């Protein structure tokens, strides 16, 4: 079974995000990057599936200059991936449509039975890479999935798609297919810094062509802004007992907790 995981880095939300001078993008000067959380779940799932069925896990990431793609890929290897490939070359992280196009081109040369990627990312302005890529390559896809399993014959996979209210739809897909992973069965395993550093020095990161560039997102960004928080909370201070008293008073004003049953 050839598992392929698509990953990217996104801005680290620990930093304050600032808008650039043009007002249409983020100020990149102090931005630092971390792996997209859902992509890490996708990788963790791929590793578990590989351990169950056998096969290989190949990680693909776009060759974005901003951030550190090599560290991302070395981390994948440290977690247990078998192969890592850097796709194309981009100055900054491209939009999801372009990303899907680049991955689609690269997949020509990479065997894939099941492609896993995070269901979303925090910068997916123009949609999610999973379904975009799947449609480009005419592959069946289901997103927002958990509980992934691959059939013994390796021809189909099952997954649960999450809806509101805790309702879940179970689907069977013919492979090869694309799944957008919502969460992994276990928390993503830790990649020790020493192994990552060592792999960054010694590991082979393959390169793949990202195609001739895609159509882009088709969106024009008019403005980006930090949303006004509107009415922020009125903060209650003091020690826990004082806080509790104040909350009880607020509730009592609304007739709650005065001892009366509902």
């Amino acid at each position, binding site marked *: 079974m050839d598992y392929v995981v698509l990953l990217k880095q996104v801005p680290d939300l620990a930093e304050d*995000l600032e808008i650039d001078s043009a007002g249409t993008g983020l100020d990149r000067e102090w931005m630092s990057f971390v792996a997209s959380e859902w992509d890490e779940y996708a990788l963790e799932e791929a590793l578990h599936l590989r351990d169950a069925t056998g096969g290989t896990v190949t990680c693909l990431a776009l060759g974005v200059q901003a951030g550190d793609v090599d560290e991302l890929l070395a981390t994948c290897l440290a977690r247990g991936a078998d192969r890592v490939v850097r796709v194309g070359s981009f100055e900054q992280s491209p939009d999801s449509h372009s990303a899907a196009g680049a991955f689609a081109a690269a997949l020509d040369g990479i065997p894939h039975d099941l492609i896993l990627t995070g269901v979303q990312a925090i910068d997916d*302005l*123009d*949609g*999610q890479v*999973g*379904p*975009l*890529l799947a*449609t480009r390559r005419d592959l*069946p*896809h*289901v*997103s*927002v999935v958990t509980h992934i399993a691959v059939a013994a014959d390796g021809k189909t996979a099952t997954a*649960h*798609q*999450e*809806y*509101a*209210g*805790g*309702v*879940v*739809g*179970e*689907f069977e*897909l*013919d492979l090869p*297919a694309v799944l957008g992973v919502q*969460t992994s069965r276990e928390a993503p395993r830790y990649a020790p810094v020493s192994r990552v550093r060592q792999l960054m020095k010694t590991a082979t990161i393959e390169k793949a062509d990202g195609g001739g560039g895609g159509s882009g997102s*088709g*969106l024009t*960004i*008019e403005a*980006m*802004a*930090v*949303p006004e928080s*509107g*009415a*922020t*909370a009125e903060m*209650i*201070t003091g020690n*826990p007992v004082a*806080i*509790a008293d*104040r*909350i*009880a008073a*607020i*509730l009592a004003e*609304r007739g*709650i*907790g005065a*001892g*009366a*049953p*509902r």
Partner: protein
Amino acid sequence: MSADVMVLVEHRDGAILDTTFELLGKAKSLAAESKGEAVAVLLGSGVAGLAGSLGAAARVIVIDDPAFEAFSPSAYQAALVPVVRDREPTLVLVANSGAGMDVAAGLSAALELPLAAYATEVTMDGGSPRVTCQLYAGKIQATVRFERGRGIATVVAGSFPAEAGAGAGSPMVEAVAATASDGRVRFKRLHRPEAGDVDITRESVLVSVGRGIGDQDNLELIEALAKALGGAVSSSRPIADAGWLPRTRQVGKSGLKVKPKVYLALGISGAPEHLEGMRGAELIIAVNSDARAPIFSVAHYGAVADLLDVVPALTARLGG
């Protein structure tokens, strides 16, 4: 290209979901501005009767076929592609739900139609849509337009009032034949969470707990508080994922949407997916040890403290 605004209808167990009404209400007002129609697209099996409740729409396109007995991304995608391609609406509105995300992105790629995701506001400006999207866990807002004046938008639940789209009416109903999908994605069954003892959507007081609770044993403190308040315990996603509370208690995008009189958010950081489920509550009081938790931006009252200190004190204060 038409000036219509199309809405993908979501339904389950014979009822239209609230998010669809939110979109319909918005579509109706947008269509009025663009001088087009609000068109609802309803896929299902034996659902023609539902068309009547889509009164806010001027027209309902019904694709009734056993293949749509249950939602399936590939079936919906296959059916919708020709509809959108032929009608060329200015805007297609899809809910940012589990189902909607899949279909919208698939449509975008198949039709090479741009997609604006996580929309919280849509306006019409000179006949073409302007969409406001929330990114970076709600920290940044981007206002975008479609390069060629048409596109798809996935809308965050709760962005628009559902009342605007509800209400009976007599839209023009148009039956359209389904385009079969290739069957490579097959729906097997629906898993419902085990019926809980409590329906949190009907409770007027919810004491909701998140990761800040620490250990499962601490839940009894929360139960005691809920009892003292005459309310019920609900939770954010991590608690349900860990199995400490049943899924039926989960509030948020993958859980339930609640609008209680009082929502006590304890140890909940306030990720957008959770806020989606509870921001409509009348009174939100948040307790979190992190002063920068996003929950404080939607709460009416907040306290930066350890919930394990405040909760027993509050329970005692209430005589519990």
